[in-house]
C-alpha cells in the first residue's frame, strides 16, 4: 500500500502530461464560512485540505501514510512523538518548510485556539521542539489515536507568512504546502485553485479547479447537464436517478459513517428499564428493514447494511462473525412477539431533515411488521442539540449518523464527554482501560478481543447502514477519482478525461 515517495522536484520534472491543461468546475453546496484559517471549525475542508498538507495523513480508512513528515515514532510511555520532516517541501509563497512552521502550528497556545482538539488542549500538549529537522511533541498524558484524530487533521501553515500578514491576510490569500495553490476567491460565488507546480508528491492531473457554490441540488444537476459543472456535491436521494438518466456517475467519498438508531430512553444512566433495553426489540427494528434496497435507493448503491453498532465492517479489528442481520419480516415479528409486543408497537421517531428519505423508508418498512413510528424531522442542528443536551423526553428513537473510527468509538462511552451516548460504571472502567493502551497494535487487539464482543451491550443502538459521507456526481469530463483521503479531499487524485 505505501507509495514510493519521491522528492517534489523530481516529480515535477516527471509529471506535467498534456492532461495538465484540464480545468474542472466543482459545484458544492456551500463554501462554509469562507475562511481558510485552520483553527476555524467552519473552514471549508474541500479547499483547505488541498491547500495544506498535514504531517501524517489518513490515506484510506484506518491506514496512515506520511505526508509532510516522512514518518513518526512514539516513546515507550506514549508521551513523546517525533516527526522527521520531509526535505525540499516548498510552500506556495516559495518559502521552504521548516520545523519552525510545525512548531508554530502546534504551539500549545495555538492549539488552544483550535475548535475541537480537546484531548491535546488544556495543557495536555506540554511543548513542541525542533531537533534538527525533526519535530518532537511532548504530552502530559497519553492520547490514543493521536494521528487519526489530531495530527492528520491539522495542516501545517507557514509561520513567517502568517506572522507577516496576520490571519486576515492569510484568509485573503492562503498559503500552504498542499497539492493546490490558491488563485482567487469571489465571496459567495467561487474559489479557484491551481495545481502547485512544486508539490512534493504526485503532480495533480487537473490544472485548475473552480469551486462554485450552488446550494440547490436540482440546480447542480442541471449544471452537470449543461457542462457548467463537472463534479457535483452529495447527490443522494432523488437526484441519483437524475445522474443515472443522463449517464453520469456517482462516486462515494468521505469518511465512513453509520446511520444508526439511538434510543433516547437509554441515554440517561439513571433510567428505569424500558422496552428498548431488550435486544430483541432492537434487532426486530433492523430485521424489518430491507437495507440493501434502501442502500441502493438512497445512497446510489454506495452503502451497505451495517453489522455492529459504531464499528464498521472495514475496520481492521472487525470480526466477520458479526454479519449484518438479513431482511426477515417473519423473524422480526417473532422477536417482537417474544419481547411482549405481538401487536407491534408505536414510538416517536426523530430524524434530521438531511436523512429524510432514509427515515421515510424505515418508517414504511416498520409499518409492515406492525411498528408505527411517528416521524418528526428536525434540522440537523436541532437534532444534535436534542441528543447532546438530552432535551428529548420519553422513549423516542433517533436516527443519527454515527461516526465509527477506531479508537474514537470508545469515546462514545466516556461519561465525561459532551456526547456520552451510554455510560455506566462498567463503561467508565472500560473507557479508562482502553485509553491507557497507546501502542496501536495492542489497541487493535484490545478492540477486537474486549470491546467488540461487548458492543451490543455497550452501545444499545441499532445500526442501519454504513456509507461514505456522501456521493459526488461526476460529469463526462471526469474519468475517475482513484482514491480519497479521509480528512482531506484528495483532489490530486482526480483524473480528468
Amino acid at each position, binding site marked *: 500500500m505505501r507509495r514510493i515517495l519521491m522528492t517534489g522536484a523530481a516529480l515535477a520534472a516527471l509529471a506535467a502530461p498534456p492532461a495538465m491543461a484540464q480545468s474542472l468546475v466543482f459545484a458544492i453546496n456551500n463554501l462554509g464560512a*469562507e475562511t481558510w484559517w485552520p483553527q476555524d471549525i467552519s473552514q471549508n475542508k474541500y479547499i483547505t485540505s488541498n491547500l495544506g498538507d498535514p504531517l501524517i495523513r489518513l490515506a484510506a480508512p484506518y491506514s496512515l501514510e506520511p505526508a509532510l513528515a516522512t514518518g513518526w515514532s512514539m516513546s515507550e510511555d506514549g508521551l513523546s512523538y517525533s516527526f522527521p520532516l520531509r526535505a525540499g517541501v516548498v510552500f506556495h509563497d516559495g518559502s521552504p518548510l521548516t520545523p519552525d512552521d510545525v512548531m508554530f502550528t502546534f504551539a500549545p497556545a495555538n492549539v488552544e485556539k483550535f*475548535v*475541537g482538539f480537546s484531548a491535546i488542549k488544556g495543557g495536555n500538549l506540554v511543548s513542541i521542539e525542533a531537533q534538527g529537522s525533526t519535530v518532537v511533541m511532548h504530552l502530559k498524558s497519553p492520547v490514543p489515536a493521536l494521528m487519526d484524530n489530531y495530527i492528520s487533521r491539522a495542516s501545517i501553515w507557514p509561520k513567517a507568512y502568517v506572522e507577516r500578514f496576520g490571519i486576515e491576510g492569510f484568509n485573503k490569500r492562503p498559503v500552504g504546502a498542499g497539492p493546490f495553490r490558491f488563485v482567487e476567491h469571489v*465571496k459567495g*460565488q467561487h474559489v479557484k485553485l491551481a495545481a502547485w507546480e512544486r508539490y512534493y508528491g504526485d503532480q495533480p492531473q487537473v490544472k485548475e479547479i473552480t469551486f462554485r457554490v450552488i446550494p440547490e441540488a436540482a440546480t447542480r444537476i442541471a449544471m452537470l447537464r449543461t457542462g*457548467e459543472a463537472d463534479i457535483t456535491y452529495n447527490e443522494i436521494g432523488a437526484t441519483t436517478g437524475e445522474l443515472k438518466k443522463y449517464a453520469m456517475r456517482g462516486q462515494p467519498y468521505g469518511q465512513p459513517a453509520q446511520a444508526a438508531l439511538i434510543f433516547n430512553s437509554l441515554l440517561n444512566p439513571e433510567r428505569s428499564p424500558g422496552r428498548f433495553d431488550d435486544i430483541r426489540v432492537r434487532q426486530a427494528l433492523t430485521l424489518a428493514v430491507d437495507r440493501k434496497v434502501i442502500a441502493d435507493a438512497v445512497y446510489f448503491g454506495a452503502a451497505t447494511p451495517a453489522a455492529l453498532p459504531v464499528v464498521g465492517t472495514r475496520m481492521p479489528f472487525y470480526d466477520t462473525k458479526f454479519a449484518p442481520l438479513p431482511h426477515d419480516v417473519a423473524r422480526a415479528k417473532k422477536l417482537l412477539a417474544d419481547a411482549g409486543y405481538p401487536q407491534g408497537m408505536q414510538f416517536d421517531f426523530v430524524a434530521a431533515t438531511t436523512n429524510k428519505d432514509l427515515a421515510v423508508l424505515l418508517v414504511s418498512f416498520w409499518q409492515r411488521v406492525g411498528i408505527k413510528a411517528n416521524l418528526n424531522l428536525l434540522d440537523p442542528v436541532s437534532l444534535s442539540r436534542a441528543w*447532546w443536551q438530552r432535551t428529548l423526553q420519553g422513549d423516542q428513537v433517533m436516527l443519527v449518523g454515527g461516526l465509527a473510527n477506531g479508537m474514537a468509538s470508545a469515546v462514545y462511552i466516556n461519561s465525561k*464527554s*459532551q456526547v456520552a451516548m451510554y455510560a455506566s460504571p462498567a463503561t467508565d472502567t472500560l473507557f479508562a482501560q482502553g485509553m491507557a493502551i497507546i501502542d496501536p497494535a495492542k489497541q487493535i487487539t484490545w478492540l477486537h478481543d474486549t470491546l467488540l464482543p461487548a458492543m451490543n451491550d455497550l452501545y444499545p443502538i441499532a445500526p442501519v447502514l454504513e456509507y461514505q459521507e456522501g456521493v459526488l456526481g461526476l460529469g463526462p469530463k471526469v474519468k475517475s477519482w482513484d482514491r480519497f483521503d479521509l480528512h482531506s479531499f484528495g483532489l490530486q487524485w482526480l483524473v480528468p478525461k
Partner: protein
Amino acid sequence: MARYLAARILQGLVTLLAVSVVVFVLSRLSGDPLTLIMDPMSTKADLARELARLGLDRSYPEQYAIFLLNALHGDFGQSIFFKRGAFEVFLEKLPATLELGGTAMAVSILIAIPVGVLSAVHQGGWFDRIARLAALTGQSAPVFWIGLVLILLFSVTLGWLPTAGRGSWRNLVLPAITLGWYGNAFLMRITRSAMLDVLDTDYVKLARLEGLAERRVIWKHAFKNAATSIVTTLGLMSISLVTGAVVTETVFAWPGVGRLTVDAIFQRDFPVVQAAVILIAVMVVAVNLAVDVVYAWIDPRVRFG
C-alpha cells in the same frame, strides 16, 4: 408634510424596536449554536467556557440590552460561524440581493404597470383577458418550481443562458424573471384595479369631455391618481421580494442576503440572523417611508394635509 413624515418615522422606529425584540426572543429560543461548533469530544466544562466567551451565560434581558445598545452603533456582534462582524457579513451579501431585487422590481414596473393600465383601459377585451389570466397563473405556481423549469428550458434545453451564479447580465435574466414573476402578477392586478377605479371618476370623465387625447387622459389624469395605490403596492412588494429572494437565491445560487440568512438560521448563527432580519426590517421600513414620501409627492392632499 413634516408632521406626516415625522409621524411615519416615529411609527417606523417603534416598529423596528418591536422587530428587534421579536428577533431576539426567537433567536434565543432557537438554542445556542455551540453544538455545531463544539467538538464531539469536548467536555461540559469546555461548553461552559465557550458560553461565557460568547456572553450567552448572561440573563436574557441583559443580553438584549447589550445587543440593542451595540446594534444602535451598527454592531450586531460577531458572527459565530464567520468569526467576523455580523453586520459586515450582511453588507457583503447585500449588493447581490439589491441587484437582483432591484432588477426584478424594475422588470415588474416596466412590464406590470403598462400591462395593468392597458388591461384596465381595454377592460373585458382580449388583451385584458389574456393579461389577467397570465397574472393569475403567475401567482399560482411555486417560485422554486418556476425557477427550475426556467433553468431546464433556457439553460439545459436551449442553452441560451447560464444556469446559476452571479456574473454578467446573462446570469441575471433567469433569477430576475423568477423573482419578479409573483410581484409582476400582483402589481399588474393592483394597477389594473386602481386604474379601473380612477377611470370611473368624474374628473377622468371630465378630462375626456374636454376633448383631451386618450393617451393624455390615461397617463396624465388617470394614471397619476392610480399611482398612489401602485406605489403602496411597491412598498408591500418589497417584503415579499425578500421572501421570494430567499428561494430564488437558493435555486440560482445567487450570493445574497436571503440565502445567507437561511444558512445562518440553520447554523444557529444568531448574530447574523438578528442582523439580517433587523436590517431587512429597516429596509422595509425605509422603503415604506420612501413610499410615503413618493405618495406625498404624488398626492397634494397628503403633501399639504
